[in-house]
């Protein structure tokens, strides 16, 4: 049995698809934070068989978790304060995502303009379709990259 220390303030991201934790680590830019992060891969799960878990010890206003809704809205987000779960965040599709996916249209201005953010806007919440803000190209990749 692997033991990871208790959190006093931060987040526990549970029910991440097995093997996807490093993608989420980068998408949330956890590598840029100066705080304690624990990544647990391939943990046993009754619901999923195997799952990943990420624990982040940081002030709870420090992370923008909206992007998780785009990546996988089945992830459970537990918000921890004083070592107890104070809230569970419901994940919804964000209206806008920045610099997480890239526009693949070779005719799009994002292919040449320096330092231009790749921004996608939620065009159809029912079909979960995002389109590039600049050229309206549909994002047709896998949300759960």
């Amino acid at each position: 049995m692997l033991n990871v220390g208790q959190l006093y303030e931060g987040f526990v991201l549970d029910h991440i698809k097995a093997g996807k934790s490093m993608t989420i680590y980068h998408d949330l830019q956890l590598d840029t934070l100066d705080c304690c992060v624990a990544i647990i891969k391939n943990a046993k799960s009754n619901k999923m068989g195997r799952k990943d878990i990420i624990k982040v010890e940081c002030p709870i206003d420090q992370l923008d978790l909206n992007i998780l809704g785009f990546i996988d809205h089945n992830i459970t987000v537990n918000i921890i304060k004083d070592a107890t779960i104070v809230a569970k965040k419901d994940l919804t599709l964000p209206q806008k995502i920045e610099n997480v996916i890239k526009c693949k249209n070779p005719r799009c201005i994002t292919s040449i303009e320096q330092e231009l953010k790749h921004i996608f806007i939620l065009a159809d919440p029912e079909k979960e379709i995002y389109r590039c803000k600049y050229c309206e190209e549909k994002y047709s990749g896998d949300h759960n990259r």
Partner: protein
Amino acid sequence: MRHLMSPLDLSVEELDKILDLANDIEKNPQEYAHVCDGKRIATLFYEPSTRTRLSFEAAMMNLGGNVLGFSNADSSSAAKGESVSDTIRMASCYADICAMRHPKEGAPLVASQVSSIPVINAGDGGHQHPTQTLTDLLTIRSLKGRLHNLTIGICGDLKFGRTVHSLIKALVRYDNVRFILISPEELRVPDYIRDDVLTRNNKEFEEVVRLEEALPSLDLLYMTRVQKERFFNEEDYVRMKDFYILDKPKMELAPREMLVLHPLPRVNEISTEVDSDPRAVYFKQVRYGVYVRMALILTLLEVKVC
């Protein structure tokens, strides 16, 4: 400060006001001859254009203003690697308003995000061409008397034809407008036009390959050119370029009141023998283009005409 990126940036009411103003300019050009004295338009054209650039320049000059700019990327600092953002920041220091054409889709939107002057999208890749749409709407409204209750055939390159995308987006807002989309399989409208624009707005549309099949039921035929510059593969272009040619025998299949529009330039998709047909209004359309750009410049510069 407002910009124009897409025809949908303007509400139907705002659009009507611009078209009304354009019609007034057409009737009373002398009243508008000096309303932009001392103002300048920057025409930043990163790809070749004859009509659109000259139309913007003529529009500003007709209003008493001046023009500066460039007509291809090689004669601008883009050739040295300057970004669109930096170019518009620079142009904002020289001009009061800007019209930008760029081969990359979304470039005018990037410019508008950092610009201190109004930016007009004068065509961005295969994406949007809102001032051509204003031209088309003014032509249709002036010659047909309405923008509703119309069956509109759009023929040619519907995939890369930015004028087509902008026109459809604008026309879905009017009642009882029906579209017949005439193109080869490979050049059909992009899915965002089919799904997010036509289907979402419950507009009746058909996609057909044969022009002859569509002609008898049309109030308007909007012809477009297969654009060589949008193809990455020469072979595909050669295969598509002569797919549709509107000639006299085909015009005989069309109703007597049908109008033929074309954003121009034409290559060979409309035979020159059709030019003398009173239903061919594509050269009148060019004149309407100047009036509507004059109206747009006045609107974006918030110039009050007494």
